[in-house]
């Protein structure tokens, strides 16, 4: 008698809610939201999913601005210069067409955002103000003080809410579903209710952001666990340039709770200087011409070198000083930095120097996409924003990520919408759906390895062995740890049920985090040179034979890597870009 209710209960729990849509968008940061708007405006029904609450995505953390060659401040700026800066910063392995589209279309996307209601800072003439940023030839970053990301998110959120776009927040997608070759849906767990959803869609856009949380010291928010990388990889999509992880030169070092939190490049853009514990402006040695505003990899490695040489601050950083600009200027231009240091560290940056050190910031690599439509190699699957690759090559310019999410977010919405008009909804076996639901449920209410412990070991391993300067020995060690953790993760389980169980969520995130980590390490081992963000102490020079992309794909017996030629740049674009020097 007593067994029957349990069985009944199980059948009830196995149920799921079915939801049909033309375009399904996984991720509601800047790219996902911008994609939702364009897919909807192209006449498709749109469903937007987000792991966090609506409007909380990692985009809100973006501070400095959107790179767009409006030429409002420096009239000599043009798309050509922006294009050339992007290609050079990417150390010649970027997809030229993506860089071209970005440079040409970013100004329109910025003006469109303004027409959606965003209010940018202004020049005396009343046009959009632009600030200097590292390795940009001209002052190019359109900004809203130092809270540009928040303005983007709230503006796009407003547009989403006033369109008939269905959204589910606190929804975690555990698997993409395929009908034959084509991706045609997804299974999600609604975190705040514990209910399962089956999404059936004609096209799917992945816009889940990066994987920064696989590192211990990172500027990335809670969400950035590489979820979309894992989903796409398992569905057969190619990844590219995964070994390229950007370290931002300036993250907070104190107090421990905010270690890694970003200190915007805007501080240096507005005149901030870097000093070591001896009070020396050390960038004079590393980059006498561009100084603090050289490319991020160069400034980050300089900071790292000073700290390693024993010229660091009490909390293990270097000093960033902007006090010479005066209190009024700082509070006006960098209001949230002022507040951030005052609130968290008890430091008044108008009077005292900040302590900063490199922090993991961005993945240049990700899902390989077609520049025009952001389609992946899997039919029906699209990707845009940080989770996609190609635009930034071996290193990303500051401000190009916000331009990226707007330009390619729109393109993926358009691309997925057009695709959705050529197909009908797919078919799946209900047993496949049930099997996935059972898998998720089996992780709950049981004893197993604590998923947080696996996550913490992974973070430590990545920070210790796959950091800002890499070498073969440490990378091999890292790979072994990752493969061991992959085994451990098979036994991960948590107490508690399906509803708002963050331990369960961590268990679900682990496979994607491990896939991202494995790709980074395998790629870093394969790339026996130093290029852009990827620096090897055992191969400190750039190698012309490796001016190629590394492609990662799921094979029958594990991850497969292959070198692939960078798309050949047409002559009329080639002459704009400075020649590569070895």
């Amino acid at each position, binding site marked *: 008698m007593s067994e029957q209710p349990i069985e009944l209960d199980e059948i009830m729990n196995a149920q799921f809610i079915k939801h049909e849509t033309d375009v399904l968008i996984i991720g509601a940061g800047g790219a996902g939201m911008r994609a939702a708007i364009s897919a909807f405006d192209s006449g498709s029904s749109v469903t937007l999913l987000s792991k966090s609450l609506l409007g909380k995505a990692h985009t809100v953390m973006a501070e400095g601005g959107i790179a767009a060659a409006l030429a409002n401040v420096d009239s000599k700026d043009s798309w050509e210069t922006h294009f050339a800066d992007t290609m050079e910063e990417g150390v010649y392995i970027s997809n030229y067409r993506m860089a071209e589209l970005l440079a040409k279309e970013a100004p329109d996307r910025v003006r469109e955002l303004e027409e959606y209601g965003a209010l940018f800072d202004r020049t005396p003439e009343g046009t959009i103000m632009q600030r200097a940023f590292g390795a940009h030839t001209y002052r190019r970053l359109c900004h809203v003080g130092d809270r540009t990301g928040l303005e983007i998110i709230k503006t796009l959120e407003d547009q989403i809410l006033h369109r008939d776009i269905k959204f589910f927040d606190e929804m975690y997608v555990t698997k993409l579903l395929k009908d034959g070759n084509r991706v045609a849906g997804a299974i999600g767990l609604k975190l705040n209710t514990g209910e399962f959803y089956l999404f059936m869609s004609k096209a799917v856009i992945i816009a889940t952001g990066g994987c920064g949380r696989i590192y211990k010291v990172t500027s990335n928010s809670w969400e950035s666990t590489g979820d979309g990388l894992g989903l796409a990889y398992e569905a057969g999509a190619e990844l590219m340039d995964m070994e390229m992880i950007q370290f931002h030169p300036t993250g907070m070092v104190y107090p421990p*709770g905010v270690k890694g939190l970003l200190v915007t490049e805007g501080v240096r853009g507005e005149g901030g200087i870097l000093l070591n514990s001896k009070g020396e402006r050390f960038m004079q040695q590393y980059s006498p011409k561009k100084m603090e505003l050289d490319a991020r990899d160069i400034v980050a490695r300089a900071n790292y070198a000073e700290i390693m040489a024993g010229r660091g601050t009490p909390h293990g950083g270097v000093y960033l000083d902007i006090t010479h600009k005066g209190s009024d200027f700082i509070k006006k231009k960098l209001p949230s930095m002022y507040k951030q240091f005052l609130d968290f560290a008890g430091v008044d940056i108008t009077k005292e120097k900040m302590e900063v050190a490199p922090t993991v910031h961005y993945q240049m690599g990700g899902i390989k996409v077609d520049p025009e439509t952001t389609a992946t190699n899997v039919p029906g699957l699209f990707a845009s924003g940080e989770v996609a690759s190609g635009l930034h090559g071996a290193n990303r310019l500051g401000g190009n990520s916000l331009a990226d999410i707007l330009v390619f977010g729109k393109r993926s919405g358009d691309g997925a919408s057009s695709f959705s008009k050529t197909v009908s909804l797919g078919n799946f076996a209900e047993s496949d759906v049930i099997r996935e639901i059972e898998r998720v449920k089996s992780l709950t209410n049981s004893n197993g390895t604590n998923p947080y412990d696996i996550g913490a070991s992974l973070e430590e391993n990545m920070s210790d062995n796959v950091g800002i300067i890499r070498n073969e020995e440490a990378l091999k060690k890292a790979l072994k740890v990752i493969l061991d953790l992959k085994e451990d993760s098979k036994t991960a389980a948590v107490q508690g049920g399906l509803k708002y169980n963050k331990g369960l969520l961590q268990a679900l995130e682990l496979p994607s985090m491990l896939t991202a980590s494995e790709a980074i390490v395998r790629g870093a081992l394969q790339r026996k040179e130093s290029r852009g963000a990827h620096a090897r102490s055992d191969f400190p020079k750039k190698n012309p034979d490796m001016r190629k992309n590394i492609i990662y794909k799921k094979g029958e017996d594990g991850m497969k890597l292959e070198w692939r030629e960078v798309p050949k740049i047409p002559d009329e674009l080639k002459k704009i870009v400075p020649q590569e020097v070895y």
Partner: protein
Amino acid sequence: MDTVKVSVFRRDPAVEKEGKYVDYDVPREDGMVVLDAMKYIERHLDPSMSLRWNCSAGKCGSCSAEINHKPSLMCKTRVDSLKGDKIKVAPMAAFPLIKDVVTDVSENWALLKKIPKFTPKEGLEKPWRISQVDIERSKEFKKCIECFLCQDVCHVIRDHSTDYFGPRHVVKAASLDMHPLDTLNRSEFMNKDAGLGYCNITKCCSEVCPEEIHITDNAIIPEKERAVNISYDPIAMFLRSRKQRRAKA
């Protein structure tokens, strides 16, 4: 080891009629905030405790709760700033409980949908020209991170069932109304349909705002006054009636 005692409200409304406070001892760390302590509990002491957080940097507004009875962001509340022998962490009382300290704030999206959207003047020459002075007023309201602490502290929302949308939504309306190129006036809507009249200006919302927006002085009072001016201003009434006559003619 030096520890901090944290007393956390626990309840799953699906299975428990009443909640209880459970005490945890968390190792004290230099510069620690309440969210650090809560993360420690989640990871090491009781993974079944539900906790919502995202940026942990005061930029996203996810980790709202009542800390020692005061609506606060967990990520911005320093442990060493709190008095007493233990820290009490409870969910926001103005919202339906999901579990433990996590609440359902989704009604706010439904309210935001109702506020008329940004509607710029038509036929403006592009690119738009706006002076820096004119964006400053709206800019204050655009700092809002939607943590909904102002909604939580508002006694109109907590204690009375009215149609008042709440402070966050007045701030939203004000940010649009004060956009230099917007053509609508939302104050009438806010007073008639969004229950702004129920607000009796106790300023509690301004006190809890982590972004230090002067919600009452700069958003609520102007929105109240402008509605009054439109409804009772004799000159405005005259102009309106003339406009209506012209429209008829």
